[in-house]
């Protein structure tokens, strides 16, 4: 290993950490650009995110016989590049979405006890973990169930290779927009899981998100003291740990791992992130998406994190889309079979997705690269369509270029193809060499080479 790049990497790491005796004025990362320009092996790395919307797509013949009789306004009619943009993808067209169509989860979910193989939460758990959920509690009125594995955002965030060159203050941020929930029992507040019962609730309040991104700089050295104090807390936990049963120890360990992350964040010192004015908040979904997206993009440009999940609407959302003339909640309208309403709502959800991408395209990192070029955003929903809970034709969009590793604007069609191949493509597109992905029948070693550059 040559000394040159290594030392520059160390300087860069020191700058990002705010430690190591590197004295630089603000903004720190901008000060690093000359070094970065010389050290071509040191990049700021790709950004990975999940963009989730609820209740799938307007149904069409491809979803099944019960759903037949409606046009497919989602799937491009030709593959490769240069396809005519279908109406539902029109809002995103400027951002060159890559479309994987025809996919469906191949994960086998048993139906005993009855009901667990269906349901909106099951849909997202399979769609984002490729494994079956844990069914216990699904038959209770609270519809309690949980993902068994980390969702894809956490697979990436916790992969030691992803943050190997230098860390970010947050391994990931979980953000939301709509606060409508089909159930209010808590586990519907998250599409991000670390494992069983361990959910990462979405932050839907722009004020709190602002605080999380821009409020972690102390400026007066108080942060280092707060970080040091946590050593005593961790020592307390060490006394307790050995006296607990196995399940309780796991929960204490998870807590302490999270506390360690808080400590690490506090010990970074000042983050070179210029705070915009305090954000407003809006009841309008598109406006609120813009507020949240702009905050996130400002943070991403400062390397506040490189992994996020964005829950526009939660699975089975009961959000009321009055702005497109639908007065009943989306879940009800969906099951009532009102195709026109679901079409209008989905088009609005795609406009929100586009607004989100606008923010990442407009913000540039300290090296002058638009964030969207570094990003790989996995846009998906819990179903192919929500009217009959159809899994066929699950929507998969890839936005952004993953630092040049993913081709933009490509359509690949794989009829009845394995959704886990999309997951594998994402992981490989991020440079995380992964021999196989998928569980419980969805295992695959095959990606979509057409979209990997």
């Amino acid at each position, binding site marked *: 290993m040559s000394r040159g790049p290594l030392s520059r990497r160390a300087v860069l790491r020191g700058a990002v950490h705010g430690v190591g005796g590197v004295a630089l004025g603000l903004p720190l990362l901008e000060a690093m650009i000359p070094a970065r320009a010389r050290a071509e092996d040191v990049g700021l790395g790709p950004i990975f995110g999940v963009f989730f919307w609820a209740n799938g797509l307007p149904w069409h013949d491809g979803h099944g016989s*019960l759903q037949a009789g409606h046009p497919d306004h989602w799937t491009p009619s030709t593959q490769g590049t240069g396809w005519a943009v279908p109406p539902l993808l029109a809002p995103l067209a400027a951002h060159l979405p890559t479309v994987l169509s025809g996919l469906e989860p191949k994960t086998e979910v048993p139906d005993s*006890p*009855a*009901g667990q193989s*269906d349901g909106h939460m099951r849909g997202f758990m399979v769609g984002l973990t490729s494994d079956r959920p844990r069914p216990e*509690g699904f*038959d*209770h*009125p*609270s519809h309690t169930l949980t993902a068994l594995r980390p969702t894809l955002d956490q697979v990436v965030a916790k992969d030691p290779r992803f943050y190997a060159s230098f860390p970010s203050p947050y391994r990931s941020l979980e953000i939301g927009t709509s606060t*409508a*929930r089909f159930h*209010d*029992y*808590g*586990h519907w*507040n998250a599409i991000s899981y*670390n494992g069983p*019962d*361990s*959910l*990462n*609730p979405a*932050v839907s309040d722009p004020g*709190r998100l602002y605080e*999380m991104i821009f409020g972690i700089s102390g400026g007066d050295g108080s942060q280092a*003291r*707060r970080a040091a*104090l*946590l050593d*005593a*807390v961790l*020592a*307390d*936990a060490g*006394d*307790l740990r*050995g*006296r*607990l*049963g*196995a399940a*309780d*120890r*796991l*929960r*204490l360990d998870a*807590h302490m791992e*999270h*506390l360690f992350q*808080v400590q690490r964040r*506090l010990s970074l010192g000042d983050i070179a992130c210029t705070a915009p004015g305090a954000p407003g908040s809006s009841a309008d979904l598109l406006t609120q998406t813009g507020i949240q997206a702009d905050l996130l993009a400002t943070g991403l440009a400062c390397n506040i994190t490189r992994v996020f999940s964005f829950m526009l609407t939660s699975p089975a959302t*009961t959000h*009321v889309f009055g702005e497109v003339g639908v*007065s009943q*909640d989306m879940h*009800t309208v969906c099951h*009532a*079979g009102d195709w026109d309403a679901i079409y209008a709502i989905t088009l609005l959800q795609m406009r929100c997705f586009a607004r989100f991408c606008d923010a990442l395209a407009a913000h540039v990192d300290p090296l002058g690269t638009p964030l969207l070029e570094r990003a790989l955003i996995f846009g998906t929903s819990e179903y192919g369509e929500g009217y009959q*809970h159809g899994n066929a034709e699950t929507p998969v969009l890839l936005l952004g270029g993953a630092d040049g590793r993913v081709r933009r604007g490509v359509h690949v069609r794989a009829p009845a193809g394995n959704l886990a191949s999309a997951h594998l493509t994402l992981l490989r597109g991020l440079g995380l060499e992964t021999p196989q992905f998928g569980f419980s029948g969805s295992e695959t070693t095959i990606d979509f080479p057409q979209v990997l550059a």
Partner: protein
Amino acid sequence: MPVEQPAFARLTTRQLHNVYVDLLGPVAQPELPADTTPYLFESVGAASEPLSESGVQLLEEAATAMAAEVFGDAGRREAFAGCAPQTAWDACTTGFIRAFGRQAWRRPLTPTEEARWLAVAADFGSSDPWEGLEAVTAGMLQSPWFVYRVELGRPVEGRPGVRRLTAHELAARLSLFFWNTTPDAALMAAADDGSLGTPEGLEAAVDRLLADERSREATEAFFAQYLDLQRLDRAAPDPLVFPDFTPALRAAMRAEVLLLVDERVQRQDADVRGIFSARRAFVNDVLAAHYGLEAPGASPITFVPVDLPPDSPRAGILGLGAFLTMNAHAVDTSPTLRGKYILERVLCATIPPPPDNVSLDLTTGADADAPLRERLDQHRDDPACAGCHAMMDPPGFLFETFDATGAWRTEDRGQPIDSTGELLGVPLADAGALGDHLSTHEDVGPCMVKQLYRHAHGRLDTTADADSLAQLSEGFAADGHRFRGLLRALALHESFQLVAAPDGAGVAP
């Protein structure tokens, strides 16, 4: 009697807010991680889900901010500490660590812990000893000994694998159960001197906790969760159809349920099943108008009791806006949801989810203008649906004289309403008759016992709990279904004090 593992519950958000104030005095209410309610109860979420990273960060920020608030004021910090430290290792500092640690962790500190936090005080207080105390305060409020209800217990002679809670663990469990907060000085003293470990001492402590005003709030919190009132917050009646459904009306609907429960449980201390049959409502002005009741003295903030006629179909909590609204759609009523709620929440019956690929759409087709009751006949004609809907819909039909926000109505789509129905084969004339039926129904008591047990233990009951549940249910019935009697019996029951030894290594001190 077999014994289950302890639940190792973290304090719920509600408990944290109360405990912070009890320990520190009035403080700005910090933002805290939201509770989840799997199986209806905050305590179950608190005992099964690890704190998220964002939740841990909120606790850190809360502890830092509250400690800064207390120690930022010279008078306040001295009153809080009870002395003024001159150095970071003087008697004031040592005494503070012992006293605050004991309060915050609900037990005396071990010498190792004292030494650890003394070192923190010395470290952080090297230039200003007050900063040492502030750091100790912020740190101890993040320790797992504060954040969790730790229940390790002591071995029980002759019963390998079983532990009995220590006196301090029992004090904490009692206090958090009855008051949703940390033990007060008297309860801590009873733990210190061992009296809590005697049957008489325990009874005296339970009776004192139960008699205190603070037990009302915790009882109310249980009923709000057992009755799933959070769903009222999410109900979204169509504003074009129900223009009078305002935030004020929604809030009043929630309040009146708890007032009715409070009267039955706290003031009358009578058979709690009467909450289903009472011909009595507590209304403010908007609710009185909504129900069409005369309520002299009612105002936006004053709820007055109104006695309803003995034959009123509007009876008990199931005749109130909360139940009727949260179990309805935006425009239509839902006999199915109303019946399902009664079977699941009041009788603890299990209803399987609907089969895949059934049409849930009853709004289209030739009979779209027929009364809902006729359209729902599809449910019971289709054999795939009939098994469950024949149970769920008929009790729901009893409420068809109440619209989707609980207002009285006499017709549905221009036709008179048939509100007869049945509950599990028992024919009933109207909702009032259902309330009367539930007020003597023998499944209501055991269901309430089961729900309270889950709430108290922070977990689902298992076969290991069957004997305890049966004993408590029998005692509840024999005592005339007095809810306060049930609370007392539960706290005095052996199941409240025994836990299984941890399956891993480790020995209790």
